[in-house]
C-alpha cells in the first residue's frame, strides 16, 4: 500500500531562503510502525535540509534494504532516491558521486545493512572518504524479519523472546574512526535538539560524514532487558549538545556562551560543541576513541560530534577528477576520434 500526502498547500506557508516550503522537503506518509525512531530521524533530515537550506533536487537519497532503507520515501519526496541492494548502498553511492560530484548524497542504512551484510562496503566507503552523509538508524535488531539480533546488539541485551545476545557488539563509531572517517557523530532519534544540528554539520562537511543514530524499534526491541529501548537509551545517554551555524550567518562572538569548542568547516560553517567538561579535542582521533571507550565501559552512551578531520581529501580530490561533473562531459571531451585511432593502429604494427 502506498500513502501519498495531499498536494494541497497553504498559500502562506513559510518559505526558506531558497523559496521552498517545508512541505516540499517532506515525502510520502511513513508506513513504519507508529513511534518508530526512524520517523524522528526522517523529520530531522527534513528540518536540516529545509533550514540549512539545500534545494531538494540537489539531494540524492541512497539506501540499502531494511526498515531504515525504506525511509528515504518519507522525506524529500521530489528528490531522486535509490533504494538499492542489501548492504550495498555504499558502492552505489560511490558510483553516483563519481558521476556527479555536485549533488549532496544522503545515505540511510540500518545496523543490519551496515554492520552485518554491508560491513565490507561500509569499511571501504569510509577509507575512500566519499563526500556523503551516511546515517545508520541503529536499533540493534532486524525489524522487517521480526526482531532477530543484529551485530550492534549489546552483549546480554535481551530479544523480545527473552534470549540474551551472547556476541560482542560492533561499535560503529569506533570502527569508523579507526578506518579514517573524517566526521563521526552519534545521536539518539529522541534527541532532536542534538540530531538536527549534527545532520546539518554532516551535510556541510567535505568528505565522509558518519552518523550513528540510536533509533529504537518500538515493535521488537523496546522491552525491558533491551539496551536499545527508548527507556534504556534515555537513562544511559551522555549527550554533548551541538549547535550548527551555517556559513552565511555572521558569527558575532568568537565563542558562544557555554561553548567549549568551535570548529570551522571548509565551507565556513561553524560547529559549536557544549561539552559538560572539556573532555577532549574532537580533532584528536585517539582522544575520541578513548572517550567513547571510557563511556562504554561505564555502561554509558556518549553522543554528539565525536571526531572531525576537516582537511582530509575526499575521493574526487584523491582521484584528481575534473571539477565538472563527469556526467556532463560530452563526446568532444570524451571521444578522441579517428585520427588518434589511426596513430594507435600505427603503433600496433
Amino acid at each position, binding site marked *: 500500500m502506498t500513502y501519498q500526502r495531499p498536494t494541497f498547500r497553504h498559500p502562506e506557508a513559510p518559505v526558506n531562503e531558497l523559496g521552498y516550503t517545508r512541505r516540499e522537503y517532506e515525502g510520502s506518509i511513513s508506513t513504519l510502525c507508529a513511534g518508530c525512531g526512524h520517523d524522528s530521524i526522517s523529520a530531522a533530515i527534513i528540518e536540516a535540509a529545509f533550514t540549512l537550506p539545500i534545494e531538494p533536487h540537489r539531494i540524492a537519497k541512497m539506501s540499502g534494504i531494511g526498515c531504515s532503507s525504506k525511509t528515504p520515501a518519507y522525506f524529500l519526496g521530489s*528528490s531522486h532516491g535509490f533504494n538499492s541492494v542489501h548492504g*550495498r548502498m555504499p558502492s552505489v553511492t560511490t*558510483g553516483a558521486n563519481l558521476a*556527479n560530484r555536485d549533488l549532496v548524497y544522503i545515505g540511510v542504512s540500518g545496523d543490519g545493512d551496515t554492520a552485518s551484510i554491508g560491513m565490507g562496503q561500509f569499511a571501504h566507503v569510509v577509507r575512500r572518504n566519499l563526500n556523503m552523509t551516511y546515517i545508520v538508524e541503529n536499533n540493534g535488531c532486524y525489524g522487517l524479519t521480526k526482531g532477530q539480533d543484529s551485530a550492534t546488539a549489546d552483549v546480554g541485551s535481551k530479544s523480545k523472546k527473552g534470549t540474551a545476545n551472547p556476541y560482542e557488539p560492533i561499535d560503529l563509531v569506533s570502527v569508523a574512526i579507526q578506518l579514517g572517517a573524517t566526521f563521526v557523530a552519534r545521536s539518539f532519534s529522541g534527541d532532536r535538539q542534538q540530531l538536527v544540528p549534527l545532520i546539518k554539520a554532516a551535510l556541510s562537511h567535505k568528505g565522509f560524514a558518519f552518523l550513528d543514530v540510536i533509533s529504537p524499534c518500538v515493535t521488537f526491541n523496546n522491552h525491558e532487558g533491551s539496551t536499545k529501548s527508548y527507556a534504556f537509551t534515555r537513562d544511559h545517554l551522555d549527550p554533548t549538545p551541538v549547535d550548527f551555524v551555517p556559513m552565511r550567518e555572521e558569527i558575532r562572538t568568537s565563542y558562544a556562551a557555554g561553548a567549549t569548542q568551535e570548529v570551522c568547516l571548509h565551507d565556513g560553517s561553524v560547529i559549536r560543541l557544549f561539552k559538560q567538561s572539556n573532555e577532549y579535542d574532537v580533532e584528536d582521533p585517539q582522544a575520541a576513541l578513548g572517550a567513547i571507550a571510557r563511556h562504554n565501559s561505564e555502561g554509558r552512551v556518549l553522543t554528539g560530534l565525536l571526531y572531525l578531520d576537516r582537511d582530509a581529501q575526499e575521493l574526487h580530490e584523491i582521484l584528481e577528477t575534473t571539477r565538472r561533473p*563527469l*556526467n556532463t562531459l560530452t563526446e568532444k571531451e570524451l571521444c578522441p576520434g579517428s585520427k588518434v585511432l589511426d596513430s594507435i593502429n600505427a603503433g600496433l604494427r
Partner: protein
Amino acid sequence: MQAKQAVNDFVVKFANVNGTGSASANHMFAKAIFRMGIPVSPRNIFPSNIQGMPTWYEVRVSSKGYLGRRGGVDLMLCVNPQSMERDVREVEPGGYFVYDSTKAIDIRYVRDDINYIGIPIMEMCQREYTDARQRLLFKNVIYVGALAALLDIEFSVLKDLVADQFKGKEKLIAQNVHALELGHQYAVRNFDCPIGLRVERGGNIARHILETDHILMDGNTAAALGAVYGGATVAAWYPITPSTSVVDGFDKYCKRLRIDPGTGKKNYAIVQAEDELAAIGMVIGAAWNGARAFTATSGPGLSLMSEFLGLAYFAEIPTVLIDVQRAGPSTGMPTRTQQSDVLAAAYASHGDTKHVLLFPATPAECFSLTVKSFDLADRLQTPVIMLTDLDLGMNDWMSPPLVFDDAQRFDRGKVLDGEALESMKERFGRYLDVDGDGIPYRTYPGAHPKKGGYTTRGTSRDEYAVYTEDGAAYVRNMDRLLKKFETAKRLVPEPKIKPAAKATPYGALFFGTTASPAYEAVEMLAADGILIDTLRLRAFPFTDSVEEFISSHETVFVIEQNRDGQMRRLLINETSVSHPEKLVPVLNYDGLPITARQIAGVIRATLGGSDNVTPIASKREASRKKA
C-alpha cells in the same frame, strides 16, 4: 629420418620457466614474423603462478591467415628441464627440438623421429655476462637470435623491433642486439640455416591477408580503448585474471587521451573496488546518475555480480560489463580459456531475467562492440555483457585495424533533461511505455527543481515508480521488460553468415574465439567435399536470421568451448527450433583453445566419414539404447 619442410606454415612452441622474462623475448619473435607480413598467432599458455613454474608460448605461422590453434608442434624450443619430457613428446614426427646443450640431454628424451638442435645457451651467457640478472634475461634474447637464423627471419626486422621497444635507451638497444647476434651467429656457424621450416615475405601468403593493413593487439587492450571511445568516464573493478588488463588498458589510454588540457585534471575516474559486488554497484550508481560506466571481470566475478545485475535489469539501469571468460566452475583453471559463462551471463540473477550479450571474435570487434555496448545499454536501459575469453583477451591477435567513424554519435537513449521536463504537461512516469517499444524515459538526479524525481528500487512499483505490491502492476512491468527484450533484437549486431560454395543441408554456428578454428575446419572439410554454411553469432537476444539459419538446415553444428553446450542450450531455450537434436554439439573444454583439427574431426565423424573418432550420432543412439 625426414625433416619437416614448410614455408610460412608451422607451429613453434617455447617451453620456459615463468618469471624469467621469456614472454617479452617470445613476443619479439612473433612480432618479427608479423612485421614480415606473415600471419602469426602467438599464445601464452601460463600457470597461475608468478615464478618458477613451467610456462609455454605457442606461435602458429599460417600463410592462409588461420589464427586458431592448429594443434601439434613442429619446432619446440625448450629451456625448461622440468617440462622437457612432455615437450619432447609433443613434437610431431620430422619436427625439431631446440634445447640448451650446455648440459647433455637426458637419453630418455631422445626420439629417433625428430631433429635435435643443441645450442649451449647457458654456457654462452656465462661467458658473456657476469651479472646474474643479465645471464637470465639475455638467455631468452640469444635463442630468439638463433631461431631467426634457423627460420630465416630477417635480422634487420628484429633489430628494428629492439630499437622500437627500447626507444631512447641506447645502451639497452646495443645489449639486446648483441645478444641477438650471439645466437644468430652460433646458429649460422653450426647448422644449415635455414632448416626445413622457414618464413618468407609475400610468397604463398593469402591475398586477403596482404590486402589488409593488420595490427597485432590483444582483445583486452582493444576493449579498453573501446571504453575510451564509447565515452566511459567511470570504471570500477576488482583484479581478476584474465580481465585485469582491460582496466589497466583503460587507465593507460585515459592518461594519454582524457586529461583536461586546461587543468590537467582527469576526465575519468577509476576505482579499484573491494570486491566485484562493489565494482558493479559503483557502475550502477554512476550509470543511474548519467555517466557511462563499466566494469571488467571473469567468471567468479560474474557470479558475485549476479544480484546487482538483477537490480540493474529490474530497475532499468544501463550497465556495461566485460566478462573475459576462463575455465570454471569455482576457481577452475584461472589461467586457461573457456566459453563457459554463456548461460550464467544470459540469465544472471534470481528471478526472471535476461541480459543482452555481445560476442566479439577479434580485437577490432572487442573495440567496436565495446563502443556499441554503451549505446545499447543506454538505449535499452539494461545490462549489456560482452563475453570475450582469455584466449582473445590476453593474447596478441593479428586483426584488421580498429575503425571509428567520426560521424557516429553517442546514443544516450531516452533521457528527459530539465528543459524537456519543464515543458512536460503530463505527470512523468518513469516506467510508462510511452512509445510502445517497452523502453521508458528516465531522468538524471538533479535535472529539474520540481519535476522528474522518483525513487529507483529493486522492489515492485507501478508505472510512476511508486512502490506497490499489486500483482497486476508487477505483471505489467515484467511483461514490458520482455517487450523491451524483443526491441533489443532489432538493435543488437546481426550475425555474420557465410554460405558454402553450393547449397548444403549442413550448417555450423559458433561465436567468439571459436570462429577462427571453425572457419579453418570448414575449409578443411570443403576440401574433402563436405560443404557447410556458417553463422557467427555476435549477440543475444538472437535475431530472426539465427532462427532462419537453424530452420533452413538439416543439421547445425554448434561449436563452443564448454562442457555442456551452453550456447546450444540457449538456442534451444530462446528460439523456436523444433527438433533440438538437429543442433549437434562440437565441444572442447580442456582449457586450451579449440583447434580446427578437433572441429573437423567431430564433424567428419558425425557425418559418418572419418577414422579415429566415434560419431556423435551413434554415441547418442548408444546412450538412448542404454536408457
